[in-house]
């Protein structure tokens, strides 16, 4: 066993009891098993094919502490935190702080009847049968030891239950905040269940509130039941000393749609795992991602879409704009099972390199075991089109603005997939500011984007 792995085994061993006492029986169920699986497998190195493009060892080698699970919250109102000049979204806000559910700040009246929203630890005591039915059912810790690490150490997270036929007046915005006065290693576990024919829009915003280093590992399990539509948007905007691994697992049932988009603006190392299983006929998945990177940022998106039954469709559309020495990677695996006739699967990955030092890797992996299948994929990596730049300059637009227009045009193809209009507008604004280098200059905001 390497020193690194024994360090984490020790961390788990030392904290297991404390973690358990702040969590719930249902969440504690299997914690020891997870600990054993992790201890057997250890932190994945780049020799592991799944982590070929993302070297986690330097990160895990740094010194980290787990958060104080009893810490009082240093603020009371979300408006005190967000002082950016981006227009406010009209949403119901749910806050988590360092991986623990904090509170619901919104208008409970606007929530549909039967809707449950709260901390996973608390809700698994209040609604044990609902949570137990779905928790730990999808996220496989056998294939990824970091899922086991999350399971061993996650104290809390969010539970959201959308009852049959329910629809929302407003999107639910989950704001994950990280703050602390020492480098923190955080783990959180979310569970989202959308019952039959319901429709919900969820917006996840990841933010850092202090300049310390953070490293978050979050796992989200999602169930989209028959005929439901779940939209799940994630805006990753942390300072560049902050890293995160997100793993989203979604089971999509008959005639249901899972629509997800991840916008990565700032952050150190970001690894997003997206695993979607289309398990009922007529299920549909739409997954897109946009990352705008600079300095030494690294964003790695790994998707795995499984077509298990006939007549399902999936679309994937991932783009990145890379500046300075940043790097991105995309691995898109599509698995079409023998039964999944009439599958329609599409995948595209495009990167725009602004410097010679930036680099991006793209790796499509298609495994098709059915014969009546439409499956296409494409990847391009390119530089800014000089001729287009010159054309715009010839009409009086200076080179900086011309470049921005081109970058923006490139990014817009992903932004337009965001169906919550105020969110799309806000993302447009954030992307514009990000491309102009202005995000790092919002000075009266607590949120430390850099």
């Amino acid at each position, binding site marked *: 066993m390497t020193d690194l792995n024994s360090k984490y085994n020790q961390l788990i061993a030392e904290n297991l009891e404390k973690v358990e006492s702040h969590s719930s029986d249902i969440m504690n169920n299997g914690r020891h098993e997870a600990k054993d699986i992790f201890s057997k497998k250890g932190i994945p190195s780049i020799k592991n094919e799944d982590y070929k493009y993302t070297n986690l060892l330097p990160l895990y080698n740094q010194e980290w502490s787990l958060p104080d699970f009893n810490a009082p919250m240093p603020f009371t109102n979300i408006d005190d935190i967000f002082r950016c000049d981006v227009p406010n979204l009209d949403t119901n806000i749910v806050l988590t702080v360092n991986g623990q559910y904090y509170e619901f700040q919104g208008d409970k009246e606007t929530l549909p009847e039967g809707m449950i929203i709260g901390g996973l630890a608390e809700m698994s005591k209040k609604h044990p049968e609902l949570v137990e039915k779905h928790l730990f059912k999808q996220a496989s810790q056998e294939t990824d030891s970091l899922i086991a690490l999350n399971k061993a150490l996650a104290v809390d997270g969010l539970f959201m239950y959308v009852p049959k036929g329910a629809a929302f007046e407003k999107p639910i915005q989950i704001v994950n905040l990280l703050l602390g006065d020492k480098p923190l290693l955080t783990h959180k576990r979310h569970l989202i269940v959308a019952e039959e024919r319901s429709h919900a829009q969820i917006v996840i915003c990841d933010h850092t509130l202090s300049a310390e280093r953070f490293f978050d590992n979050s796992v989200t399990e999602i169930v989209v039941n028959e005929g439901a539509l779940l939209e799940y948007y994630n805006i990753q905007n942390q300072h560049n000393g902050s890293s995160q691994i997100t793993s989203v697992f979604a089971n999509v049932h008959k005639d249901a749609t899972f629509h997800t988009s991840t916008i990565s603006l700032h952050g150190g190392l970001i690894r997003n795992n997206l695993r979607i299983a289309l398990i009922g006929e007529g299920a549909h998945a739409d997954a897109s991602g946009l990352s705008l990177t600079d300095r030494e940022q690294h964003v790695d998106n790994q998707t795995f879409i499984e077509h298990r039954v006939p007549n399902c469709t999936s679309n994937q559309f991932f783009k990145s704009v890379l500046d300075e020495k940043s790097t991105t990677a995309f691995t898109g695996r599509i698995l079409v099972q023998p039964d999944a006739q009439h599958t329609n699967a599409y995948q595209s990955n495009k990167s725009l390199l602004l410097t010679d030092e930036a680099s991006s890797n793209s790796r499509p992996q298609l495994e098709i075991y059915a014969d009546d299948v439409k499956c296409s994929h494409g990847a391009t990596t390119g530089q800014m*089109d*000089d*001729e*287009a730049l*010159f*054309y*715009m*300059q*010839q*009409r*009086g*637009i*200076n*080179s900086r*603005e*011309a470049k921005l*227009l*081109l970058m*923006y*045009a*490139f990014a*817009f*193809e992903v932004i337009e997939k965001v169906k919550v209009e105020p969110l799309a507008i806000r993302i447009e604004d954030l992307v514009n500011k990000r491309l102009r280098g202005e995000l790092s200059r919002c000075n009266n905001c607590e949120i430390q984007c850099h």
Partner: protein
Amino acid sequence: MLSIKNLHASIEGQEILKGINLEVKPGEVHAIMGPNGSGKSTLASVLAGRDIFEVTDGEVTFQGENLLEKEPDERAKDGLFLSFQYPVEIPGVSMVNFMRAAVNEVRKHRGEPELKSSDFLKVLRDKKALVEIDSRLTNRSVNEGFSGGEKKKNEIFQMAMLEPKLSILDETDSGLDIDALRIVANGVNKLKTPENSTIVITHYQRLLDYIVPDVVHILYNGKIVKSGGKELALDLEKHGYDWIKKEMEA
């Protein structure tokens, strides 16, 4: 307006322009003709500031100022317009936003206020009518999926929007059908004032029946080898370039 003296330019170490001299006065129309590969588009690109070409010798003044030291967008804002032989497609950038940005840049440079949205749209409508382009084209991305002829019309539409002092039209007639040729030529003529000047690069006398040049130049192997009145174009039409080549070799 424009004064070119002994202009030499090369690309990848290969000299393409080998000492061009040209004077264009306000209000004049000059035609440049010449065989394929003689350097016509290169001259246009160098004047517009395309940096893949290296100017190795000579000087160019535009409205009394040194043109060559300016950035392409500054040249455009000073009133130099190039209608490209091969207009580039820019997916994702809408014609409307592109033109709004361009028009406002040019206005800012002239010390005029930005156009109000409604005023801008009115100008857009008027100018579209001038070159009779399909109004749906302006809702699309710049040149994306435009037919060859639509791209050329779109160039003249942009010229109408920007009201340049000097327009260089690089084979704007190629790819246009007979009606479109007439429309485009009429558009150019309507935009003509006693002050602004035009350089028309073409292979065909036909365009010059509509846009009547004051002077016709023949560019051959990187040099202007002959200049004359509009009848020079007729001679070329009749005899081709062989007699020029013979004259050069003699």
